[in-house]
């Protein structure tokens, strides 16, 4: 029986969704095991390639309302488990695309408008380059790979094992992302390409978003002069193969942000496909002994805490989650 006294769950998929669900379920008194082909977090998971921005207000520019509301749960949740930098987000545009800044401002809230000296005060290396910016001061960022490893370690310390197969009697929580397409027929992939570069010549303290009508770019500082540049959004489920065009666009945008990025060392290029439902909102679905947690789209780190909380509310307390719907498969 679902709400019986013995609560053992096998969580399939140890990406950001699986790890957050496991952590939350453990904290709420359940017993869990993780099922994943890889023993530790790595490039097989889409979240390995994430930006790690906790930016619900910025995302609201193109995302539906639940992303803004549920995303705000991420600050405290992640803050209780891993290091989180709460330095806000800076949104800028090149001279020719300044109207994109007006549009972004109309579509969002929770920002201050800065002039050139305001930009300089926050990011001295951008002094004189941008005379207007939007500053979303309450947003945050984290290092995705460190966060995944840290959750994994914390779970291991509590005796949670990662195995190839789960215990047959357990209820299943399926967090496989795009691989769950065999069960979730309306799930699709949205390809994203990213770069990691080292550029000690430029110091940025917070994520910077450069608006452009066709090629929006964000750059997230990882510390020690390392930056993540991302990310393309292509309606394709392809999980490999970064194209020259995407590479050129991202590097050109970085160069436009600051010419010193021309001398950056390219450390890594990455690509994967985000799992998404048609409205780009996440879902919890139930069928028999299996509960699916999926469709986090480009909001893995932003929404995983709220999805984990709702999954635990549902499986441990019987509360129907707002993101629950019938399985369309």
């Amino acid at each position: 029986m679902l709400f019986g006294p013995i609560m053992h769950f096998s969580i399939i998929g140890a990406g950001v969704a699986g790890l957050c669900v496991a952590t939350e379920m453990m904290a709420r008194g359940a017993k869990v095991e993780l099922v994943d082909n890889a023993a530790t977090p790595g490039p097989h998971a889409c979240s390995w390639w994430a930006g790690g921005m906790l930016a619900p207000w910025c995302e609201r520019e193109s995302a539906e309302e639940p992303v803004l509301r549920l995303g705000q749960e991420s600050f405290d949740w992640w803050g209780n488990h891993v290091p989180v930098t709460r330095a806000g987000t800076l949104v800028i545009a090149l001279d020719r695309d300044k109207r994109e800044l007006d549009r972004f401002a109309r579509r969002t809230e929770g920002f201050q408008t800065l002039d050139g000296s305001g930009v300089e005060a926050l990011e001295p290396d951008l002094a004189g380059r941008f005379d207007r910016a939007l500053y979303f001061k309450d947003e945050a960022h984290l290092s995705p790979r460190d966060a995944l490893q840290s959750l994994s370690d914390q779970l291991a310390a509590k005796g949670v094992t990662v195995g190839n197969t789960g215990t047959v009697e357990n209820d299943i929580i399926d967090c496989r992302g795009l691989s769950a397409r065999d069960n979730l027929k309306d799930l699709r992939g949205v390809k994203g390409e990213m770069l990691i570069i080292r550029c000690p010549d430029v110091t940025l303290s917070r994520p910077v978003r450069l608006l452009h009508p066709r090629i929006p770019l964000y750059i997230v500082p990882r510390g020690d002069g390392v930056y993540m540049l991302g990310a393309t959004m292509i309606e394709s489920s392809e999980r490999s193969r970064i194209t020259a065009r995407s590479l050129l666009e991202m590097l050109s945008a970085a160069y436009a942000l600051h010419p010193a990025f021309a001398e950056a060392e390219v450390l890594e290029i990455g690509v994967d496909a985000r799992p998404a439902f048609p409205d780009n909102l996440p879902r919890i679905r139930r069928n028999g002994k299996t509960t699916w947690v999926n469709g986090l789209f480009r909001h893995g780190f932003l929404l995983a805490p709220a999805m984990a909380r709702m999954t635990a509310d549902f499986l441990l307390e019987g509360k129907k989650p707002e993101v629950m719907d019938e399985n369309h498969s």
Partner: protein
Amino acid sequence: MTLFYGTELTSPLMLGTALYPSPAIMAEAFKASGAGVATVSLRRESGADRAGQDFWSLVSDFGVPVLPNTAGCHTVKEAVTTAQMAREVFGTPWIKLEVIGHTDTLQPDVFGLVEAAKILTEDGFEVFPYTTEDLIVAERLLNAGCKVLMPWGAPIGSGLGLNNLHGLRTMRAQFPDVPMVIDAGIGLPSHAAQAMEMGFDAVLLNTAVAKAGDPVAMARAFGLAVEAGKAAYDADPMEPRDMASPSTPLIGKAFLE
């Protein structure tokens, strides 16, 4: 009744499928607009293994004819290859042919366009060429076998409307029997209505709807605008009268109106 390669459209609005906040909003926008054609790009989405299939299936489900395009192609060879793939994926001979000449303005390379149009029509394609208002290019495209022309209103994604009214009016007048679509540069429903009032047979747009704050409401506005513009053209509008012209003597200003 305008036929596009033998097909009558349910609406003279052709709507693109890029840049929407989500496929769900895109689907609602299509419904609200009543669009008669869905255009879709393949070049970047196809990947190594046609991995864009999920998205293409969504578009095919709209129940309107699909007009695949060669957006993102800069050479004849790329455009021809993309068209061939589009024919296989969507099972249609229709192709909106774009050969981009300039990476910033996305202005068409009309020389490559004519060459690609010839290759594709000989291969059985029904080509919708994205071109400028240049009359000679239009003639070359018709000679190459195109039976539809798609002159731009303004550069792709600019939202500037109909930049060269005289040029577009001339083009319309020079090829009165060729189905003609204003493609690109439309920013507002008034631009679309204006194109229809001038006697163009359809308008094609994407960004103006997809990047609106409320894409669904904007889609509806465009649907109404093309309907209004077409009805106005069909109703044979009055001729404007230029009061600055001194040709009529007004003796004693007896005619008060």
